[in-house]
């Protein structure tokens, strides 16, 4: 355990735990969009920047990546932090003006309109990579990834086409902080709309009650991974004995 100071409060934390978690454990709120407990930290959105001072030197760090250290002094609401947080929000909002989540955040920070010119038609994606990280680390499918660099960077399926590795589980849509991925079940089809591609998947029909209860590809994935017989999922969970 180490002792550090956050906003004038002395707190104790496990060594190596990141500042964002330590702050949240102590009910100090730091906004963050690209952080999620179920995937490794990444530091993409830069909203969680805080000011730290060690040995008389001050600097800004991303609190979702910076580990707690003995004697560290952290400020989460200094003028410099607020300034950076506002600028980051303005930049994100200029990129995704239609995102309700960013609009809410901007309102909280008192931003009426970003000073940067607004981009059009970029489908709410802020490139936080939560979807691609979840696809790789939570599901193990790696069906989507970030492609290109710089301003051309985008979340994409291989060759911008139907992803053969996708099992249609919907984890990417669930984890997306700005709801840039849409998922919808219509009859026997699941439609996943990503910023650059729309994919359709067949749903499996229960042999007893006839309901469409899960995507076929997801069940095939589970059968493959767990070594189950091919007919393991012919019935839905409610019709199984």
């Amino acid at each position, binding site marked *: 355990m180490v002792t550090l100071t956050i906003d004038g409060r002395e707190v104790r934390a496990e060594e190596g735990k990141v500042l964002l978690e330590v702050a949240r454990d102590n009910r100090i709120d730091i906004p963050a969009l690209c952080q999620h407990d179920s995937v490794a930290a990444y530091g993409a959105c830069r909203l969680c920047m805080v000011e730290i001072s060690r040995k008389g030197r001050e600097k800004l760090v991303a609190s979702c990546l910076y580990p707690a250290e003995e004697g560290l002094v952290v400020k989460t609401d200094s003028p410099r932090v607020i300034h950076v947080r506002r600028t980051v929000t303005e930049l994100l909002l200029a990129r995704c003006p239609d995102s309700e989540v960013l609009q809410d955040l901007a309102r909280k920070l008192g931003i009426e309109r970003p000073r940067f010119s607004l981009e059009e038609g970029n489908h709410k994606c802020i490139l936080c990579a939560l979807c691609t990280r979840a696809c790789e680390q939570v599901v193990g499918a790696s069906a989507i990834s970030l492609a290109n660099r710089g301003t051309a960077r985008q979340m994409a399926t291989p060759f911008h086409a139907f992803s053969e590795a996708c099992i249609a589980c*919907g984890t990417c849509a669930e984890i997306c902080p700005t709801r840039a991925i849409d998922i919808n079940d219509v009859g026997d089809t*699941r439609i996943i709309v990503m910023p650059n591609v729309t994919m359709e998947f067949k749903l499996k029909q229960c042999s007893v009650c006839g309901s469409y209860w899960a995507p076929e590809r997801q069940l095939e994935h589970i059968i493959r991974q767990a070594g189950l017989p091919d007919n393991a999922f012919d019935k839905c969970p409610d019709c199984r004995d």
Partner: protein
Amino acid sequence: MDKQTVYIPRLASTKERFAPGHRACIGCGEALAVRLVCKALGDNVIIANATGCMEIVSSQLPYTSWTVPWIHTLFENTAAVASGMESGLKAMNRKGVKSLPGVKVVAMAGDGGTSDIGLQALSGALERGHNFLYVCFDNEAYMNTGIQRSSSTPYGASTTTSPAGKVSVGKFSWKKNMPAIAVAHNVPYVATASPSYFKDLFSKVKKAVAVNGPAYLHVLSVCPVGWRSAPELSVRMGRLAVQTGMFPLYEVENGKYKLSMDLPKLRPVADYLKLQGRFRHLTQDMIQEIQRRVNEEYAKLKEKAA
């Protein structure tokens, strides 16, 4: 919604606010419901909990399962205590005693503490418009005192105070429609939920605490002991209750009904009833009667949501 049950649960927070080690019975649907509701609520919350199963099992001196501020209240005054907490927080804020931004006040009670004993306090709190969430965990009888019928017990269920026999069909009246009573108070948000549909439950809890004003959430909590059902079927029973139309999932935002699940065809109620010992004595005629009533109520609900 119900088709995303394998990978998405892995995204849920692993932090428990309703800690394990409590004394709930094996297969308890209510403990599961409380745990999921607490997960969705987060840390910034004060809970007033009525007497009932959850209070008994979670707070045996000197232990507690609650990692958030928690007050045990009587059966009848849960909503009144929650009202007081909400007013107290407001007053502290106004007088500058202490500012506690974003603290949510939540009242939790069973079906007895809600639809029977606590109804007048709840009605008062809803009418006064306190900014709080009331969650009713409905296991359809007074389970912790030994399965006595409540007004939330469904028609035909055999309990210790409505035993089925030669002259009795079990409970002789229909289940009280508690969400409709809450809707009649013109509150901003009323919803029904089931822990078997965890994603739906999560989003409803989050919506309910976000609204400004009173919100009411009615959660069906399967009770294997009182319902005489197999403990391993609790989650499936929750799903069957929804799929048969016995406990439809819907939300009412500012008086506007919306069904949470699109069910093209209801399952026969017998699928749900036959798994429960409390309905074991029902004859075909009675099951037909229940089916007729369920169809009628569901059609009414669909009409409201149209």
